[in-house]
């Protein structure tokens, strides 16, 4: 194998694939990056047990200046190789694999010889032979991931809750995540309806990596689903993720239908108040703040008491308060995450009682996006 390529194009692709490569893996060859040269293209592949990423650079890509002199394949230790490529002196680099997978990397006056591995020992990527292809707007899907992934559980004791649950029916795609203390649900419309309904759970960590790859230049992505894999395709990149097995709990019944107290405010206003209150709750032992609503006076007060450090109290700027008086305590971090996911918008918060979950929805779009938070019982 022998080729030359423009280093900046190569680095961009390398960075993408490296998202799937971990230096801590039980399978040694997976610490490596697979490079494959075909007649008219270069394929880079990285994989861990959860995700695999494959990306292609074509000889037709003008910026890449790719020139393949001979075909072949090799696996190179990713971190090491990545560091070398990023520090090479010239914009053009030449890579040549000789006998015994010894690989020479030449750029300007610099020449590296590193040991490679046989690409035949690299695992094959999963086969996804799905009939259904779902087309998604990249920016909307990325937003959907970021809005829901905050509620994914970090505790491995309930593996299924470490994923986002997607259900697709007709032209509606819904995403739900919950760690049992909060829940986040977002529904979007698909450009085209699909024939068969789908129901999958994708690990939150995979989706977070995916969303980081979806930059402004990417317009649409497609999703194909097989029995245990989801395959996202965009530009010249294939992104595979393992699916989580099992039955996701029925979350629709958890969202309260009615409320006894409602409060409206601008998300950034409440976020700022909560951030201030949590300065003390974080320093103290108990990460809890209290919201006291006086409906008659249209007054809402956030307070935090951490006996070891001190206490804080402030009145929240609200647009409206209706219903009954209420005193409710909760983990401020959950509310912070939820509020950040809304950005600059007007929010309606609805409560039923001090020990029941409360919800937040954008005032403009109350149907398609909801954040739910459970309160804290204080003794």
């Amino acid at each position, binding site marked *: 194998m022998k080729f030359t390529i423009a280093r900046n194009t190569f680095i961009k692709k390398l960075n993408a694939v490296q998202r799937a490569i971990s230096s801590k893996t039980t399978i040694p060859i997976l610490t490596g990056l697979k490079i494959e040269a075909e007649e008219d293209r270069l394929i880079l592949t990285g994989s861990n047990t959860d995700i695999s990423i494959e990306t292609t650079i074509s000889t037709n890509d003008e910026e890449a200046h790719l020139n393949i002199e001979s075909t072949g394949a090799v696996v190179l230790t990713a971190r090491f190789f990545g560091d070398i490529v990023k520090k090479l002196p010239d914009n053009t680099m030449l890579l040549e694999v000789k006998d015994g997978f010894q690989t020479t990397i030449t750029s300007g006056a610099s020449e590296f010889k590193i040991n490679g591995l046989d690409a035949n020992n690299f695992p094959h990527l999963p086969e996804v032979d799905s009939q259904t292809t779902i087309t998604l707007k990249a920016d909307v899907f990325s937003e959907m991931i970021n809005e829901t992934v905050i509620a994914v559980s970090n*505790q491995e*004791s*309930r593996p299924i809750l470490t994923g986002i649950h997607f259900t697709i029916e007709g032209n509606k795609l819904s995403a739900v995540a919950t760690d049992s*203390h909060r829940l986040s649900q977002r529904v979007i419309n698909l450009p085209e309806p699909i024939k068969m309904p789908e129901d999958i759970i994708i690990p939150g960590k995979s989706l977070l990596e995916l969303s980081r790859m979806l930059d402004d230049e990417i317009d649409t992505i497609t999703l194909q689903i097989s029995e245990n894999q989801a395959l996202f395709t965009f530009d010249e990149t294939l992104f595979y993720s393992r699916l989580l097995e099992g039955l996701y709990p029925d979350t629709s019944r958890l969202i309260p239908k009615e409320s006894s107290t409602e409060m409206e405010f601008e998300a950034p206003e409440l976020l700022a108040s909560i951030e201030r209150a949590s300065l003390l709750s974080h320093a103290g032992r*108990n990460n809890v703040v209290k919201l006291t609503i006086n409906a008659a006076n249209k007054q809402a007060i956030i307070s935090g008491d951490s006996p070891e450090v001190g206490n804080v109290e402030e009145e929240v700027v609200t647009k409206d308060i209706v219903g009954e008086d209420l005193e409710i305590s909760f983990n401020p971090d959950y509310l912070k995450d939820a509020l950040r996911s809304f950005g600059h918008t007007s929010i309606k918060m609805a409560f039923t009682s001090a020990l029941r979950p409360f919800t937040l929805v954008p005032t403009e779009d109350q149907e398609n996006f909801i954040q739910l938070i*459970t309160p804290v019982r204080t*003794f």
Partner: protein
Amino acid sequence: METEVLTPINIDDSRKIIHVDMDAFYASIEMRDNPKFKTQPLVVAHDPRLTGGHGVVTTANYIARQFGVHSAMPAMKALELCPEAIFKDPDFTKYRAVSEQIHQIFHEYTDKIEPVAFDEAYLDVSEDKKGLGDAVLIAHEIQKVIFNETQLTCSTGISYNKFLAKMASEYSKPVGVAIIEKDDVAEFLKNIPIERFRGVGKKTVPKMHELGVFQGADLIKMSENDLIHYFGKFGYTLFRWVRGQDDRPVEYLRERKSIGKEETYGKLLTTEMEVEERLRVIAKNLLRAVLKRQKHGKTIVLKLRYGDFETLTKRITLDEFFQNDVETYYFYAKQILDEIADISRGIRLLGITLTNLTDQNFQEVSLPLFKHSE
């Protein structure tokens, strides 16, 4: 050399503190219960000839100490130093019971008791319950009552702070009473070797010697700046201690730091199924103990001992509190076990400890996601 004081030294000698240290506690209990040990070198440790050389000395009696045996030494080393020594397996259940008995005696004088170990405690007797008003008198009485009730001897040190009280009890060992008053401090510490200062261990000693610090008299010549430079926060502390300042209170309300449950098996566990079953039982017992004390914790520790007494522990710490339920404890304990254990070697002991504890004065409400589970 002139010392440069960064922060003022303020000596408050208004407190009356007694440090009580039982003399060769475990060994003394064993000698009391089995008088034939009294005339022989006794080492409380698993016999290294039976454990394949594992284990450390918990205590040795004064006869064994004459051979150079001391606590925390590998049992194998003790055997080399004193081949005729008797090795006695430690019986912690018994030692704990005796320790509780002794604490009952302390409580007759004060409730401000800070236990350091089974055999060691600080007592703040600035105000004593019997109104004796004199720390020396109280120390003598405590020694006498402990001896009458348990036939065990102890050493006591009296001073106005914990550091000096402990120094005094070490000085008075065995069966003594020593008192250090404010004006005696410099004279007393002058000749104390640096390694006898609490907290000066294996790592610190060579560094001290390099700096020419061999005893109290050398330490007091060190500037505060230098001590902080070489030893960090501990240097700041040492600078004060050697001048007789130690404001640490006797922490009689000290929080429990951990709650643990463990089981020992006469017949070693050798199958995954047995281990899982026992681990679940331990998790259940642990949950009961945790709920009783209304705590929750962020760290779970698994302890495991093989048939040959090799003992492993490993911990997992989360940012959030572990849910107090059997499944959660079991899951994480099992996860550690899978990582570190070789069940085929035969398991003698299993334990799960919840630590990094806080009072559970709040509880996050959970969504009923899974039926039966919450």
